[in-house]
């Protein structure tokens, strides 16, 4: 403080910067700003700018080499009143997202199990995580084969065990395709949820449990009064990631079904990608992107509310 005051004195009085820099709080603010800066740079360059680009593009008619011209809401009108694929993709995307809580619940269960002094917890943990780092393309190929109607191991097992008499074309059947893709997606992402939740569990001070135990709170009570509230940030994170997966698992869907059969597994992201890079409708794809973005924002806000606001932060003193 004193040194700073001195510095402040050295500079002609009333110099705004000196005055601003003078207070402890402002220096704190400057510091916080510096802390945020690197990340902000990355996100502004690779997230915010592209979003802006998409927003602008969504009101234009453009393709590489074609000068952009403003066409107002045409792209959106097209989407709303003519593109029936959009509505299918929207529905599928929502189903896709709705499935993630199940995965998270499963992951929580596993995390709790492997977070103890259980023998071989490390092994289990590793096994569950194993699938996450696998390249999505490889995962897609493998599951496409597992689901295969003739050579697929799943049908093979189902029939060997006499559960079904006719093989199921999981990825070819209009009703099975989406659930099958979702299951494969969960298979891959389970390990991710698990370590996020593990990280959360790790940071719960044990003394809370001890205290609770001394008060004679039963296990379930400790779970709901301590574990769940303390896990709020991690759970929130998992839910957000669950929402993200509706597009971050693009590769998987693209490899497994490419949105088919018909449009049974068409997600907004596959529709966006195909519109842009297969049909070269970049302008229309931009409109789709904006819509998907808004949708996900709404969902995230809802999740945030559910997690008690502040990204599920736990306020304690």
């Amino acid at each position: 403080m004193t040194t700073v005051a001195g510095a402040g004195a050295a500079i002609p009085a009333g110099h705004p910067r000196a005055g601003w820099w003078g207070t402890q709080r402002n220096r704190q603010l400057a510091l916080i700003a510096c802390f945020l800066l690197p990340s902000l740079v990355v996100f502004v360059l690779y997230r915010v700018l592209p979003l802006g680009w998409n927003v602008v593009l969504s009101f234009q008619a453009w393709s590489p080499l074609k000068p952009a011209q403003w066409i107002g809401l045409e792209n959106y009108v097209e989407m709303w009143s003519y593109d029936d694929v959009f509505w299918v993709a929207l529905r599928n995307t929502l189903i896709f997202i709705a499935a993630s809580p199940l995965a998270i619940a499963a992951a929580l269960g596993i995390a709790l199990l492997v977070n103890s002094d259980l023998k071989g917890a490390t092994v289990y943990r590793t096994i569950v995580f194993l699938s996450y780092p696998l390249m999505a393309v490889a995962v897609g190929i493998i599951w496409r084969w597992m689901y295969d109607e003739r050579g697929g191991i799943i049908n093979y097992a189902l029939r060997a065990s006499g559960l079904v008499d006719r093989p199921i074309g999981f990825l070819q059947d209009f009703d099975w395709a989406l659930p099958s893709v979702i299951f494969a997606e969960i298979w891959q992402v389970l390990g991710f949820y698990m370590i996020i939740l593990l990280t959360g569990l790790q940071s719960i001070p044990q003394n809370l449990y001890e205290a609770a135990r001394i008060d004679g709170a039963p296990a379930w009570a400790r779970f709901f009064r301590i574990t769940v509230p303390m896990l709020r940030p991690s759970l929130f994170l998992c839910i957000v990631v669950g929402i993200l997966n509706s597009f971050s698992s693009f590769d998987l869907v693209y490899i497994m079904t490419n949105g088919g059969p018909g449009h049974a597994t068409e997600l907004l992201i596959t529709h966006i990608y195909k519109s842009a890079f297969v049909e070269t409708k970049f302008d229309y794809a931009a409109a789709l992107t904006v819509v998907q973005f808004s949708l996900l924002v709404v969902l995230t806000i809802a999740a945030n509310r559910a997690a008690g606001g502040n990204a599920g932060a736990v306020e304690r003193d």
Partner: protein
Amino acid sequence: MVTRRTLLKTAAAAAATSVFPTPAIGQASKKITFLTWNIIDQKELIEGWIKRFQAARPGVEVEWLDKKGPDFGPFYQTQLTAGTPPDVINTQGALGLEYAAQGALLDLTPLLAREAAIKSRFDANYLGNWIYEGHNYMLPFYITKTLLFYNKPMFAKAGLTGPPTSFDEILSHAQKMTSGEASTGFMTLNFDWLYWPLFAMNGVQLVTPDLKKTAFNTPKAVEVLDKLAKATQANAINKISWTGRWVEPNGAFGAGNVGMLHAHSPAYFFFKGQGSWVTPETLGVAHMPGFYATPNSHGLGISKGSKNPELAWDFLKFVTDNGQAGELAERRKLVTGNIAVDKASLAKLEKEDPTVYAVLKTQLEHTDKMTGNWRFGNDSRVKEAFWPEVQSALLGRKDAKSALADAERRMSRELARA
């Protein structure tokens, strides 16, 4: 003064090039980029070409890039937007036409007019696959169209003497060879309109000759689609026909329990690699009834944004001339659309590898009967509007009538937008 300014300029330029490792931008030496479509297996060959090309032209540099189909679009479109498109590109199917319509490709018509010798190199019908609104945009690199492969032992077992000669015979043959799940009768590839001969041989037209209006929603088309759907439900047509892409159908045919496969010539090498049963005695090769076939050829074009279009054209001529094309034909065992080359290599193959010969021969026959190769500038959009609906019908999700109605509605919209 002047000297100093120029000096500064060059210095700045040098600095720029060193700071910006961006290729093809602001480079002194004459450089072109050759972007191929999924032919990385011929690394040795293409690098050899480039060496020779450069040797003959001092100060010229050729950069070679290869992308797999799904990655090609994103890469090329991005490069277009950035103003650094690869000079010479190799695309598959109708994509070249779309890029042409997009204004990405150089119109080769004047160049071909200038050098008749080049134009006469190629099979006119194949060359014609890349004519968009009357202009040539691409030259054949290597060419394929669909044909009918069939499993002779399965034919014999079903008491069938020869390949089908009509649409209904395809279905009846298929039915005869079908027994539950153990074996299915017929299978086709479905991407890029490859299944279209099935409709063409029934006289179904997709669009009016001017490509402006849909023409497929007819009672006949409904009947055909319905027959195909029923045959699929009965397992006579393998479901993979409508759901698989490349690996599944060819893999299944290679597994030896599918009677017929309608696919283009590269399929042969794939299922041969998969199926030990494939020998000259067991594999039958024929044309589809009515000699209809859908091409899926590889073309070479020049990006309009090329900094050295003349050099690019030079390279195009170099790659497609007898020497280079000959090597490609020999190594990849394919036909190039270069008449002289194909003649020679087929003559050679006739002795060395009768099956390959039989397969490739079909590629040069009845080239006037090619179908499913409409010169759309928005082919993929039309496809996206048409195929999913038809697929729904084929897999029994929708009835043929309403599927075609929906397809018509969506396709008409795309055609109108174009």
